[in-house]
């Protein structure tokens, strides 16, 4: 798979044009640079000022937050909000749930989608295409709608308010992306390798476990991280299917902070930053596969 996030293939140095056009071309280039900077400043401001506000509010003393107009820089840096989080045992409960659910989701999702992706990549059989597009289309069904009966299904099996309900749901919703991404990785493994192993008498299962999966290790890690993030970020399923003792951080934070008479903004912003960190780390680790995986899952194999 081509990693598309890499530097643009060095835009081959434009051949100097003939003398009469030279000046126009240069003016044109300057206009391009200027408008590029305008776009970067305007849109970049929109992108990053809220992030600054998130960070700055989390470091503002609680009393100072409730003043208008707000101070762009807090008069003093205060870590009270972070300390308050550390002293809130309920939050640690949500954190534990988030970690358990997301890690199991990641592992399960990699296992299920590796077999499925391999079956889509290296075998040809009737119905393969239909299955592939069924998997792809499954992410298009609205979750709010699925939930209205999924809730009763899990209730019937006694799975409401359990990690299992969350893990099973999250794993299913990671399949389209992970399966298509891993199919892309398996496609790059030469068939000759598999044929040679078959000739040597290796079983098909053995080939998967000893040859294919080790070669696709980076893909497996990427898929696992995607699945982890999916579980970590989910809101609607954890809100609906789990009670307070099994809820993950996103609904946990809503329950803790939203709807109180006066929201503790510095604490909420501090908690928000803490929740965002694992995702940011996962994405930095993923950067190489980001676009490849996204386009693979979205467009093609």
């Amino acid at each position, binding site marked *: 798979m081509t990693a598309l996030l890499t530097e643009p293939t060095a835009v081959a140095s434009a051949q100097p044009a003939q003398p009469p056009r030279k000046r126009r071309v240069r003016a044109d280039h300057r206009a391009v640079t200027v408008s590029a900077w305008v776009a970067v400043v305007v849109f970049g401001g929109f992108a990053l000022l809220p992030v600054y506000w998130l960070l700055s509010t989390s470091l503002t003393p609680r009393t100072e937050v409730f003043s208008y107009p707000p101070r762009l820089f807090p008069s003093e840096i205060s870590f009270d909000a972070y300390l308050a989080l550390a002293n809130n045992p309920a939050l640690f409960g949500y954190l534990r749930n988030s970690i358990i659910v997301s890690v199991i989701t990641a592992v399960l999702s990699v296992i299920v989608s590796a077999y499925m992706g391999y079956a889509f990549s290296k075998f*040809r*059989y009737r119905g393969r295409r239909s*299955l592939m597009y069924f998997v792809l289309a499954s992410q298009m069904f609205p979750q709010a709608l699925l939930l209205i009966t999924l809730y009763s299904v899990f209730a019937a099996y006694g799975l409401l308010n359990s990690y299992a309900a969350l893990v099973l749901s999250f794993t299913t919703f990671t399949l389209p992306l992970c399966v298509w991404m891993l199919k892309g990785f398996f496609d790059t493994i030469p068939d000759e390798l*598999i044929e040679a192993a078959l000739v040597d008498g290796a079983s098909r299962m053995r080939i998967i476990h000893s040859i294919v999966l080790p070669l696709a290790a980076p893909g497996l890690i990427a898929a696992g991280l995607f699945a982890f993030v999916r579980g970590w970020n989910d809101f609607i399923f954890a809100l609906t299917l789990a009670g307070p003792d099994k809820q993950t951080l996103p609904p946990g934070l809503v329950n803790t902070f939203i709807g109180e008479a006066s929201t503790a903004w510095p604490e909420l912003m501090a908690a928000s930053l803490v929740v965002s960190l694992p995702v940011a780390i996962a994405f930095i680790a993923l950067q190489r596969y980001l676009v490849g995986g996204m386009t693979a899952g979205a467009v093609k194999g």
Partner: protein
Amino acid sequence: MTQVLSSSQKATSHRPRRLSDGMFALLLTAPGLALLAAVVVYPLVTALITAFYKQSLVEPGREFVGFDNIVDVLSGDFFTLLSQTIVFTLGTTIAPFVIGFGLALALNTKIRGAKVLRGLMLVPWLIPGVVVSFLWMWIFNANYGVMNALLESVGLIDAPQAWLADPTTAMVAVIVAKTWQSFPWMMVMLLAGLQTVPPELHEAAEIDGAGTVRRFFSITVPQMSGIIGLVLLLEFIWNFQHFDIIYVLTGGGPAGSTETFATAVYETAFDGFDLGKAGALGLLWMVLLMGLVVVYVRFSEKGEKR
């Protein structure tokens, strides 16, 4: 990507097997298919069937009522929901596209620090949806919000606004928050698309005297039509069913002004306990979505066959 065909058949003919390759492959897909059946297909079908029943989330039993629920929904708030959903979806598709494309173009030039900036611009995308809602709830806060302070200081408003409590501004606020979260994805996809445009085309056109704007519309846009269509379509489908940011930021309020199909179906089922009505609303929603999904799969197949 290379499509490798039939090599496995060739190899398998050497030795007898208990299972054909096709069966083996289907077996490999079984766990995934079982999950999809249990978590997507079965709930979806049963949810759509409840559209024809009077059924409560909290009481057992149900009663067949035919098209009553659907008639109810259609004569009720369906068209308000439809127009609000379309406003939200269009807003959160077009605005991130414009911002994402603008940034992609800007960061595809040789300006200094383009690489670092490309990374920085991704930050909003790395933030979980719930956190996006918290952050914009704070920014749009009526009493202490920084948005009021900013707009007042540049003279765009005279007095602080209650953005999220005013039906006319709440939708704008929700769209802004969602746009902030989605434009980086647009940027990444469009940057990737820009890098597939052969530089030779631009060089040739430049030598022929075509200006930047001309080259953008005559080379860049046509060359990228595939990826542009794809990102717009995907973003539209996703936003058509978006839930998190709306639900946390406004809960569909004030006065239902930011209610979309997603929040309405959810609230009808889990606050109103009316599964029949939720199912009916969902059925109509699905019909609209399916049209989009069919277009998307067609689109993907075209990509796969290439």
